[in-house]
């Protein structure tokens, strides 16, 4: 078993993923025991979730052992040369959007989100970006709210 990542040619992804999944599987199996496990004659609500959790642990453990045997890339390799900040900013924008969507309403929050996202990868004029954001938002509003009768959040504007 190769415990030194530098000793062999590195072939596998970092084992961090399998460790997290082992922990998740353990939590699921333990959590499922709180429900009625029943018996093999009469399986209860916790029966399959316990086995699902144990399966996650078992398959993650196999992956973990395979990684130990073959060697692995350092964790930083996963983000080498990647513009990970863009992904992080986009995620933060989406989370903020979902938090304020109901209070601000679809129109305001979507114009704000689109204005930011359209300029995120390459600089562009604010006037052009705002226009594109407005057209996009109104287009979606017309299709989903007016045509498909979805109940998009009204928020501050009231419509």
């Amino acid at each position: 078993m190769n415990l030194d990542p530098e000793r062999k040619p590195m072939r596998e992804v970092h084992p961090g993923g399998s460790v997290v999944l082992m922990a998740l599987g353990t939590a699921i199996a333990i959590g499922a025991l709180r429900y009625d496990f029943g018996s093999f004659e009469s399986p209860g609500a916790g029966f399959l979730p316990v086995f699902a959790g144990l399966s996650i642990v078992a398959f993650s453990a196999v992956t973990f052992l395979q990684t130990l045997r073959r060697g692995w890339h350092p964790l930083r390799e996963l983000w080498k040369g990647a513009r990970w900040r863009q992904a992080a900013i986009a995620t933060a924008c989406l989370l903020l959007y979902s938090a304020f969507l109901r209070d601000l309403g679809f129109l305001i929050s979507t114009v704000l989100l689109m204005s930011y996202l359209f300029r995120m990868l390459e600089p562009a004029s604010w006037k052009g970006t705002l226009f594109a954001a407005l057209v996009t938002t109104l287009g979606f509003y017309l299709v989903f709210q007016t045509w498909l009768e979805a109940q998009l959040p009204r928020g501050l504007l009231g419509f």
Partner: protein
Amino acid sequence: METIHSLLFGFGVALQPGNLLMCFIGVLLGTLVGVLPGLGPVAAMSLLLPTTYNVSPVGAVIMLAGIYYGAMYGGSTTSILLNIPGEAASVVTCLDGYQMARNGRAGPALGISALGSFIGGTLSIVGLMLVAPPLAEAALKFGPPEYFSLMILGMIMLTFLAGDSMPKALCMAALGIFLGNVGMDILSGMERFTFDIPILIDGVGLVPVAMGLFGISEVLLNLEVSLKRDIFKTSLKGLLPNLDDWRRSFWPVIRGSVLGFFLGILPGGGGVISSFTSYAVEKKLSRYPERFGQGVIEGVAGPETANNAGTGGAFIPLLTLGIPSNAVMAILLGAMLIYGMQPGPLLIKEHPDLFWGAVTSMYIGNAMLLVLNLPLIGLWVQILKIPYRVLFPLILLFCIVGAYSLNNNTAEVAMMIVFGVAGYFLRKFKYPLAPVILALVLGPMLEKALRQSLLMSVGSGWIFLSRPISLVTLLISFALLASSLLPWMRKKREDIREPSDKD
């Protein structure tokens, strides 16, 4: 005679103006997502699922099916012109299609891929029409043990083909089963893993999970890299293959149709494995295998026919047994359940309009695709030039509106974002995502079949081994699991596995 009567009835349904429009929208959007790299049919169907709530279930299924087989057509365009597969089933088309384009023969490559797709797609629908009704009749005799074993086989097959590592794929399938078990227990009514969050009582929704795992995570990963596309400049004149092209493509098209259809029926099958197998067969049978990869038309005709023929086959387990054979069919199953329909042996009898309407719409859709693809190739090439900085905010907005309009609830949007981030990390660590979706949909059915089987047998696992269909199915599953441990089989599997898990 009965089949002809049913066929005429189906055409009557499919030719209704509303259904015709849905078919057109489906194949058009399907071609579009097939053309655009980074957006596969699973993501597209998840994104558009909420827009179908106000449409009749028949129209909605027609549209969603159109997206699936339309994507198979569209995927070849980017493979041939850019050497970038629009979706996983067109990966193998890059090998000879792009070389043909470089040799100034992009037109015949695109032409034979559209015509082969049309022939393969149409023949597979004939097969679907002939095989599905008797299979559904036979499936009426299946009990919970048979269903349990078939679902296990479906998941094992998908994990066998889903990615680099089978343990990782199995781990994702187990995660999907767990997610499918969240919410109220179907037998006892007990709430499981809901943490007092109201939206979890009905379970983890398929749409937020699929949109998150396939839509949001794809965008997040693409944001990290520079997506600059160089479109190969070549003449697109003369799209129709010449007589020699047809002579060389005739048998690959026929073989591709038959192979694709039967491989599509297999659980875990579909367009990807069909196209790879067809390429391998054509190379093996060719008098000049050494020229494969340098731009031979057989290397385009066979796989492109097979991946479309695979779509018709893939509908059979879903429409007759209620068991999806791949992630795309899992989305379609989820959609049908939302519309209040239970796919399975009784579907053809209880909803003949849906079954025959959907089947005949595929004939019409395939004809539409032929008309759309050949004259509109120039337009698809223009669409490829849309910069990603414009495209990604639109994809995100589609995801947001789609997730919200499920239940008019921002919690669904938050759930989708959480799964998007989870999908981003899982992809970084090379975990395939298709098994999560399939197992999420199958999870509740699997649990019900398992518990009913154990109740029937008073806790004896022998029930799964004492019934012939269940025994054979489990033996195949076991053989697949065991074979993945053999070194030569591992290599074979690596040769045919899905190169991308987006589908």
